[in-house]
């Protein structure tokens, strides 16, 4: 590397980054990035409404302490003596098997008491916001939708077009007619694409987490952030997103340069990444998602309820240590960018034949 190359690299990046951010076609990427935010903002709003409802229905007599004194077999009258009249009651079932369901609110939780044929069968309390459940939902949406689909297609779009877009515009030759190594052009374009995708999708993740944390109560959030590893998790998600852009970006940069029709490799890679979990160990390592999954901070519990197809997508067989995962991704993208740079040297300008 010499000073001249660095200056030229800077010139390429400054020509390119605006294209990736402000291209009219980039609207797609913003939509992709915004989609998961809709989910979490929606979830936060729903929780807010539930909480407001519980606050309205709250009766002073109801506390968790008192609820804990409820015992199996108690009669409705005994329960009323402890918790007072339930603001919402339902009765269903047949005459032989009559089920009554009473709901109380202590302002934060819903306390449900169930009677079968006039005897307390069980009671439960349900928090309006369950931190660990929500973190699992986030982890699922992140791995299943965000990395695999949104970041994936965002990178397809940005990186496949780095060279193709300009071949279609017939303006690539200006780069090739300047006293600059083509390898420097490739590197500059790649860096510009990486900046754009990382900023767009990294911001998206940060906003998603913001929406998620927004509806956690103050103390719970504080506890999660300071003791539950919340800050580390949040940073990890943003960093993994950047690494995903690096990995997928390099793959599509190269795919777009080596192959005539780049949509086919995109589809093939999508399938390849999806069946990653069932591939033999050797092949599994030749993928981006394998390393990304190894880095994800919150594991998704797979119970029997999860359909096998989803389980295959989410399951991480034999995860590797974080430093190996990062190294693996860096090596993979290094190889890809090197291939692209070598290809660029023999690239010809033949717009007509495109």
């Amino acid at each position, binding site marked *: 590397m010499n000073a*001249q190359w660095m*200056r030229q690299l800077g010139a390429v990046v400054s020509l390119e980054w605006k294209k990736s951010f402000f291209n009219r076609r980039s609207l797609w990427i913003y939509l992709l990035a915004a989609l998961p935010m809709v989910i979490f903002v929606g979830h936060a709003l729903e929780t807010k409404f539930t909480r407001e409802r519980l606050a309205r229905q709250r009766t002073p007599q109801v506390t968790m302490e008192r609820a804990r004194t409820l015992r199996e077999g108690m009669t409705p009258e005994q329960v009323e003596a402890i918790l007072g009249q339930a603001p919402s009651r339902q009765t269903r079932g047949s005459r032989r098997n009559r089920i009554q369901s009473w709901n109380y609110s202590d302002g934060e939780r819903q306390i449900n008491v169930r009677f079968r044929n006039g005897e307390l069968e069980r009671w439960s309390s349900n928090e309006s916001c369950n931190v660990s459940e929500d973190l699992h939902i986030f982890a699922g949406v992140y791995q299943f939708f965000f990395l695999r689909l949104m970041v994936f297609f965002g990178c397809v779009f940005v990186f496949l077009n780095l060279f193709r877009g300009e071949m279609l*515009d017939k*303006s690539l030759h200006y780069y090739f*007619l300047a006293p600059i190594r083509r390898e420097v052009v490739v590197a500059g374009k790649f860096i510009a694409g990486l900046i754009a995708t990382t900023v767009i999708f990294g911001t998206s993740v940060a906003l998603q987490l913001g929406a998620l944390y927004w509806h956690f109560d103050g103390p719970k959030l504080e506890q999660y952030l300071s003791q539950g590893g919340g800050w580390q998790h949040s940073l990890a998600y943003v960093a993994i997103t950047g690494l995903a852009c690096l990995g997928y970006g390099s793959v599509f940069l190269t795919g777009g340069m080596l192959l005539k029709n780049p949509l086919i490799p995109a589809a093939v890679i999508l399938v390849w990444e999806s069946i990653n979990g069932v591939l033999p160990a050797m092949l599994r390592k030749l993928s981006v998602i394998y390393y990304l999954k190894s880095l994800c901070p919150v594991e998704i519990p797979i119970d029997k309820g999860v359909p096998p197809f989803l389980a295959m997508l989410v399951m991480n067989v034999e995860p590797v240590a974080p430093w190996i995962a990062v190294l693996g991704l860096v090596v993979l993208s290094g190889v890809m960018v090197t291939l692209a740079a070598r290809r660029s*040297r023999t690239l010809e300008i033949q717009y007509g034949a495109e």
Partner: protein
Amino acid sequence: MSDSRIVFENVSKFYGEVLGVNRVSLSIPPGITSLVGPNGSGKTTLMNLMTGLLRPTRGSVSVCGVPTSDPENLFKLMGYCTQFDSYPKGFTGYDFVHSFLRLAGYEAREAERLAWAAIERVGMQDAAKRKVAGYSKGMRQRIKLAQAVSHDPRVLILDEPLNGLDPLVRAETIALFRDFATEGRHLLISSHVLHEVDIISDQVILMSSGYVVAEGQIKAVREEIEDHPMQILIRCDRPQRLASRLFEHDHVVEVKVHADGQGLLVKTRSADQFYLMMNRIATGDFRIDTVAPVDDDVNSVYGYLIGAEEATR
């Protein structure tokens, strides 16, 4: 000596099955060289090979000793104004010239100075801050030229640079080429109209169907041209009046009013003098729509030249 030449060594280029150029061996000395041939004869292919936009299927090309596979050094000494009429999106004329100078590695201040110098050279100062997308064809041609010469290259390659220019701009542009082709520099101009470039050229390369069919000093070619006047079609109002004006000039050999009464067919011995004359007339009281060389005639000159060339083989 060979270090100041553009050298093709037995170069062939195929587009799949389609022949671009075949077995071209050339050694082009400095000066103004015109590359002439009908459409599809391989001029653009040859220029793209010279600039590394295409790679030869066989053979090798070097420019002043630099192989064309080394753009970093090649374009320090070369500028190429292509036939493509496309520009990076959203740029003003100035941005366009300036940003590619930055790409070449010039510091911002130096790039700015060079960009304005090049823009002034082609007379585009007033339009430089406007978007290229809003330029006329002639303006685009000129800003493209400014971009190609902005780093003051030793070798300048121009693919059909006179195409689409109106007579006034054409004369100015030719003057610019002359000005550029000072001591030791290369200027390579392609055209499908021989009469357009013969006056300014030091040497010509004639191409036909992918082969170089004649190459050498312009004098020999010029004699042939004298015997085969250039035929030009002018579309205008009042062709009869114009015809009588044209006949006042010596170089005009023949004038015919076109069958549809909307134009003239002119035969002239001197393209240069013809265009100068048209400049004067165009500013007068005629409405002139188009002035275009008639290809048939050009082809017949080729036929003659190429036939002669092949007969001597």
